[in-house]
């Protein structure tokens, strides 16, 4: 191999890789036109690259999708899940006939009643409201008693007596006012009911009178009609009698 060929053969690979300048490429082409050894080298590279190109690719044996990783156990998530379940349970109980009741022996769950009694339900609601009211009142009284007891500690005996006396008077006055109010409410209610009854009775009497008048007029018109009919029939009979004669 000539030393000139050695230099060119280095450039043959570069020519396939696009790593030659325009001048280097032209010089190589001139040499290849006259050198069979270098042309053979060029053919070897060309064949190699051609084989790489035709090798092609294989299809994938399966898809390589990734999936979200499973979350580790989180106690807070468990608490939240329990809370959500309870909310769901009570929500379902509200919209369905499921009933959850507290009784002296504990909690009881039932799936509704076969028939709904509105009167009993109303009574139950009123009782529950009353119970709630009593509880609130008892709580308020307890709070007041506690407050008074705390005040007693910081008051002298005389001040305590004065305070107790004042509270008793205030209690008496409030009780009296409540009784007065109840009396007024009762009287007002009775008066209202009496007025309503009177109005209704008057209206009823007027209606009855109107109906009677209509009956009377209908009866009178019927009598007039009947008399006219009799007169016409009488006339007809007289005419018939005359013709027969």
């Amino acid at each position, binding site marked *: 191999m000539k030393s000139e060929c050695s230099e060119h053969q280095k450039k043959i690979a570069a020519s396939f890789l696009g790593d030659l300048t325009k001048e280097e490429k032209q010089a190589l082409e001139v040499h290849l036109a006259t050198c069979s050894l270098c042309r053979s080298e060029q053919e070897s590279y060309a*064949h190699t690259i051609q084989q*790489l190109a035709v090798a092609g690719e*294989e299809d994938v044996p399966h898809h390589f999708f990734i999936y*979200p990783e499973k979350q580790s156990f989180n106690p807070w998530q468990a608490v939240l899940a329990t809370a959500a379940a309870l909310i769901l349970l009570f929500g379902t109980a509200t919209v369905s006939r499921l009933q959850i009741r507290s009784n002296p022996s504990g909690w009881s769950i039932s799936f509704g009643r076969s028939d709904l009694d509105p009167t009993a339900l109303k009574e139950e609601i009123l009782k529950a409201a009353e119970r709630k009211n009593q509880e609130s009142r008892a709580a308020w009284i307890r709070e007041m008693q506690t407050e008074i007891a705390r005040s007693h500690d910081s008051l002298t005996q005389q001040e305590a007596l004065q305070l107790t006396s004042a509270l008793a008077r205030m209690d008496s006055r409030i009780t009296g006012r409540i009784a007065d109010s109840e009396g007024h409410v009762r009287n007002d209610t009775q008066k209202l009911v009496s007025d309503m009854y009177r109005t209704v009775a008057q209206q009823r009497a007027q209606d009855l009178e109107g109906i009677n008048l209509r009956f009377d007029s209908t009866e009178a018109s019927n009598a007039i009609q009947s008399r006219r009919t009799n007169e016409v029939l009488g006339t007809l009979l007289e005419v018939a009698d005359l013709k027969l004669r």
Partner: protein
Amino acid sequence: MDSDQENFWIAASQRGDTRAFNRLVLKWEKTVYNVALRMLRDREEAAEATQEVFLLAFRSIRRFRRDSKFSTWIYRIVLNHCLTRVKQRPPGTHLSLEDASAGESPAPQLRIAETQVSELMQLEQRNRVWAALSHVPVDQQAVIELKFFQEMTFEEIAAVLEVPLSTIKSRLYSGLEMLKIRLGSEA
């Protein structure tokens, strides 16, 4: 492929959207699998490596900067992963597709009956190329892969492998010379 669409999937993947990432998998899995196959020359190992590459990519996609190319990033992951796998193999391990498929393939006569002649010829050609590649050092294989199979420029290859341009050229010339010895003699 619409790069806007790809950017959309990348952005969604960075927010942890696995469905968007799986769109990227669908687009890139054949390329990644074939790169792994040529580098590892073992179908099972290539499939395993491909799955690992996509898992690695998903876990680190938040760090991907969108001012660079996704292709550069994914090629870097798959080539680095394959290079690590090859280097971890026990010394003297020599795998080629011919060796790997010898035990499980049906008899040649049966294969001819079941496949088209052109497909068979391509399979033979592929096996010859991969057998030749198995004699090329792995660092040079990576450069050949990007130059001839992925048709990248020297600059792009340097960006993927993060090595100087001169090193890329040196590896490429040496690798091509070795391939020519194996494949070019039939010319």
